[in-house]
């Protein structure tokens, strides 16, 4: 196994899929000449050419809309929305067109489209550029929503997304491209809609994904020094949502903390907590606890921003509260 960054893992997945299948192409703002806003597609234009690495105007509806059209007629586009904050401009396409085509025309049309985008706060970009609105997108049946927490999963899930016959929104975290991790050699995919236990323990179940996984792993290390071993379940996909490992773990530990970066109201934590209660109410020895971002538009000021975002210490405190 090689140790590589999240950026490299995502880049490798795209590169290998484009090598494998000539129908895979990418389109988006600055994917070509610039080499990708987060340098994920650096070198792609030289290697694959303009036909398959297409710079677009600043026109999010066109980026996703044209991706849908191309997917409908048999290509496998990867539409890149520079950051998830601009996905709202293409909202109709992401939640109202792509996920509906297959159903609404009685199974005639497939939309094998991947929408790649980066989300998350913590880089002092102000309220309009620092969001984690994943739950909004996960609300829509017909769309698949994936958000990896490790380089290994990023590579495997992106490959699976590109090979998937349905539209997949692939959410990366803009502050995680430098995160390193082990990645298996060779071609592999990671199934969409399958959660994974990332760390075993018996004291408390932490259910999380994406940046929350990083926070939870760090918190777990600290807690371990105090003899508290938490179990960490990484959702990896928000839709379809696989509650299996989280439920099994909750039945074992009888306690759960949910860690997400988005706002808690109507969020991923709200969904997961409800499902735990619905399926395993009798197993709860303490109320399920949510760790999330404070409910404000994120401030620019660095200290305030960090105060508003969930921190490792918040996870540690929450675990101790439910113990």
């Amino acid at each position: 196994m090689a140790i590589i960054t999240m950026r490299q893992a995502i880049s490798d997945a795209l590169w290998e899929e484009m090598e494998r299948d000539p129908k895979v192409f990418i389109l988006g703002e600055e994917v070509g000449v610039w080499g990708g806003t987060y340098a994920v597609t650096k070198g792609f234009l030289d290697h694959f050419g303009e036909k398959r690495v297409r710079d677009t105007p600043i026109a999010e509806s066109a980026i996703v809309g044209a991706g849908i059209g191309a997917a409908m007629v048999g290509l496998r586009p990867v539409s890149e929305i520079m950051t998830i904050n601009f996905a709202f401009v293409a909202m109709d396409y992401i939640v109202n067109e792509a996920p509906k085509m297959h159903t609404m025309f009685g199974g005639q049309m497939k939309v094998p489209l991947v929408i790649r985008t980066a989300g998350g706060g913590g880089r002092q970009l102000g309220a309009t550029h620092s969001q984690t609105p994943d739950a909004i997108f996960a609300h829509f049946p017909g769309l698949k929503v994936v958000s990896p927490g490790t380089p290994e999963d990023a590579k495997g899930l992106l490959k699976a997304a590109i090979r998937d016959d349905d539209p997949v929104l692939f959410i990366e975290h803009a502050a995680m491209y430098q995160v390193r991790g082990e990645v298996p050699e060779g071609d592999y995919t990671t199934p969409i809609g399958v959660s994974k236990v990332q760390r075993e323990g018996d004291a408390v179940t932490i259910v999380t994904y994406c940046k929350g996984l990083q926070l939870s792993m760090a918190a777990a290390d600290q807690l371990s020094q105090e003899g508290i071993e938490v179990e960490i379940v990484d959702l990896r996909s928000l839709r379809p949502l696989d509650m299996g490992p989280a439920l099994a773990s909750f039945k074992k530990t009888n306690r759960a903390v949910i860690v997400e970066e988005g706002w808690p109201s109507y969020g991923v934590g709200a969904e997961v907590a409800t499902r735990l209660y619905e399926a395993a109410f009798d197993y709860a020895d303490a109320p399920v606890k949510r760790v999330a971002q404070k409910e404000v538009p994120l401030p620019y000021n660095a200290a305030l921003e960090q105060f508003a975002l969930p921190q490792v210490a918040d996870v540690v405190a929450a675990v101790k509260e439910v113990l």
Partner: protein
Amino acid sequence: MALKKKDHLELYHQMVLIRRVEERSAELYQAGKIGGFLHLYIGQEAVSTGIVSVRQPQDRIITAYRDHGLALNVGIPAKAVIAELLGKETGVSKGRGGSMHMADVEKNYWGGHAIVGAHLPIAAGMALGDQYEGNDGVTICMFGDGATNIGFFHEGVNLSKVWNLPVLWLCENNQYGMGTAVDRASAVEQIHMKAEGYGIPHSRLEDGMDIMKVREAVGAALDHIRSGKGPYFLEIMTYRFEGHSMGDPQRYREKDEVTKWEESDPIGIYNRYLVKEKIATQADLDKIDQAVETEVTEAVEFAEASPDPGFDTLFDYMYASKE
């Protein structure tokens, strides 16, 4: 592309079929058998019939929600159209789409789309698919005058020029978007002039009630695109005789105006042309009228006798990758 007598009779048949299917649909709607919106195409038959009669099989076609006419033109049987209106499993979209979402991918008809203007970037993507694969098909994208004021329009049309896509932008100017007359919604009344801003060749056909003129204008536009010159923008002037949808009291236009336009009924114009040019006799045309009556009656019987989709099929078309 000179037409033989039997081709003329077939086109006449299509126009009459659209008219009768829609008149019958209006009755079924009033009887409470059709739900949702029902947007009739009555008055505009020469446009879709003319377009489909000059397109090649490889030319894709996609339109907005006023889609029954086109559905019949591409050869979807009246029984599948009416069954869809009644929401039956035998409908062209298996009862999942309804009036606004009819498609038949095998006939290269990519459907009615209900969000105003949203299908324009999608059409650009479909045209990209053909360009990418080296096919010589043209994507014909039909939309109303009202759709040219929404952002999607501008993003889609701009992209088509930037990428030199084989797409025919075809604006059916029926002079109203719901109750808003063109001059109250569009800064330029000559809608085709909008293409000027994107460097796309354009023209306007003043008489869209005459199928022969539609054929000529669309044929020329398709030749232009097929010769590799990129997108073309054609505006066709027409008129809808009925309200925007069922139950529209039409307070926004004078009875006189409607009556005046009804004098240029596209079916009447075609009928007189065929008789005057001695291509067909009135008796030939009367025979078609009678045949259509039978066809539509049988289609309604078929649709009414068809089963509703079973509850056990509710999730059948949510994800393509699950099939």
